[in-house]
């Protein structure tokens, strides 16, 4: 089946700093791909680059984006506008901030349909019901400040999905929410993506969320993909030292309490500190001179996974 979205060798720069370097992945209809990494790893700007909504200071220096097989990298802005919210949509981390405080729920959703609210009221009400908002007839005329965070995120999802896009980019959609609400939203996303055959790129830093919902995972570190592969395999047997350490550093409900957690020493290099070699080399227990000198390519690990580590085979 043709992937709904393909990103190839995407590179982004801020001034001279190489913020995102040759990032590539693809998502099939109905599939959830988790783009996971710590803050500053470039996962959010990647999503913005796909939508072509980069801040003016950022610029795309290479690569292309294919939406349903069509290269949209060079599309004029007008054509991009036609795609945004129609063929591909996006939801955000802070649902309350992502809604205009002075516009009603209905206005937002109708805007995604590009029609006045009075023309599409029924359709909007139906969508609100579908994203699990009780009493849609009342909620449709309310303002964001009258809704809870969870409800705002449901409204955002309604906005994003009402035009039945092929691709949904979800940028940390549950980070700002409480765990019980997070569970609700994740369930909702999973259900709608499956029903509507929407390809979802889920950007998150939470390995728990990834384990819960993602079909496949792409782990990012300092602007590059560290490894990609099916969720179960990544968690069971990481093929990159970063993934491995990351998983080991998370306290789990099954660990021994007060045990010493694995630690990734040091800190993420800033774009100004990026050297010629592997960007994880400075913190990696396996790093040697090769790692510091050359950029490890993404290699096929034969089990449907790719890893950007010279020493992938040495991992247990």
């Amino acid at each position, binding site marked *: 089946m043709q992937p709904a979205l393909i990103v190839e060798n995407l590179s982004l720069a801020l001034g001279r700093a190489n913020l995102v370097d040759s990032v590539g992945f693809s998502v099939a209809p109905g599939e959830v791909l988790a783009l996971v990494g710590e803050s500053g790893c470039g996962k959010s700007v990647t999503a*913005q680059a796909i*939508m072509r*909504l980069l801040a*003016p200071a950022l610029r795309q220096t290479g690569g292309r984006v294919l939406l349903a097989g069509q290269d949209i990298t060079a599309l004029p*802005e007008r054509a991009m*506008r*036609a*795609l*945004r*919210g*129609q063929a591909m*949509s*996006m939801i*955000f981390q*802070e649902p309350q*901030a*992502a*809604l*205009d*405080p*002075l*516009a009603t729920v209905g206005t*937002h959703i109708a*805007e*995604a349909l*590009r029609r006045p609210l009075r023309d599409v009221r029924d359709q909007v009400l139906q969508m609100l019901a579908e994203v699990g908002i009780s009493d849609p007839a009342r909620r449709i005329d309310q*303002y964001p*400040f*009258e809704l809870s965070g969870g409800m705002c995120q449901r409204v*955002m999802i309604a*906005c994003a999905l009402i035009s039945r896009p092929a691709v949904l980019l979800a940028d940390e959609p549950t980070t700002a929410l409480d765990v019980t609400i997070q569970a609700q939203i994740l369930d909702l996303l999973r259900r709608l993506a499956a029903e509507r055959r929407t390809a979802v790129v889920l950007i998150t830093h939470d390995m728990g969320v990834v384990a819960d919902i993602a079909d496949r995972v792409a782990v990012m570190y300092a602007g590059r993909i560290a490894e990609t592969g099916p969720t179960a395999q990544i968690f069971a047997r990481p093929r990159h030292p970063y993934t491995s350490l990351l998983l080991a550093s998370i306290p789990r409900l099954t660990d021994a309490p007060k045990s010493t957690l694995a630690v990734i020493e040091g800190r993420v290099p800033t774009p100004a500190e990026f050297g010629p070699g592997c960007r994880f080399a400075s913190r990696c227990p396996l790093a040697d001179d090769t790692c510091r000198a050359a950029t490890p390519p993404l290699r096929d690990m034969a089990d449907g996974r790719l890893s950007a580590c010279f020493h992938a085979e040495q991992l247990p």
Partner: protein
Amino acid sequence: MIRLLAGRLLQAAVASFGVLTIVFFVMRLSGDPTLLLVPEGASAEQVAQLRAALGFDRPLVVQYAAYLGDLLRLDLGESLVQRAPVAGIVGERIPYTLALAGGALLVALGIGIPAGILMAVHRGGVLERALAALVLAGQSLPTFWSGILLILFFGVYLGWLPTSGADSLASLIMPAIALGALTMSTFARMARISVLDELSRDYVTAARARGLSVWAAVSRHVLRNAAIPVVTIAALEIGNLLAGAVIVETVFAWPGIGQLAIQSIQARDFLVVQTVVLFVSSVYIAMNLLADLAYAAIDPRIRGRS
């Protein structure tokens, strides 16, 4: 909403009372007008006689109490110099002042706000720099100089506009531009800041992710949100436009209350000065109240509060 208004009115009353008191005492500290009124050769007795007749020989506190008493009876008193009711003297100037302030506001809003929005949307571009230089120029020249240059150029050399006075719409143009130029740059800078502020918010990105163009996002979402701080500044500025126009009114012979106030200060015509200041501060306070109401109209969060 009602409670908010009531609270504001109470604050306004306190502020007005403060204004009255400050102006009353500062004016009295500056001496009384008796010597200005008498002929130069008047003797000490003659001066004292007139001073007593005008009531300036009483203790300050007594004069203050008398003034407050008159005010409570809504009696603004009679001008010492013009021998006419102060209400009329100030009242006759108010239409001119409002016309000038209105014209200046039109200039300031009409140019300043669009310029500010353009500057924000084109941040870092050539257009922003050009507009910045333009709007800041308005705030970088002393009016008494730019005013006479305007008069000489448009009035004398080109002969397009009347050189002075307040007898036609044409004569409003130059003073309104000269006065509006100052406020224009304030508006432009404020509009730029608040639009920039709003543009950096998530809902703008979200709106663009729904397929809105930058301008559509600005016009549908940003402007209303950005209007709130601009409304505040506009309300503050109107007070300045009313009586801060002293120099513009002097240069263009525009008979507004600013000119009246300065002349009355120089003539120590106390009641006129006090009434002008009272009027200006009332308008200022009223404008702030209006701004509060405007927020409520714009912002459902405030409207929702009881």
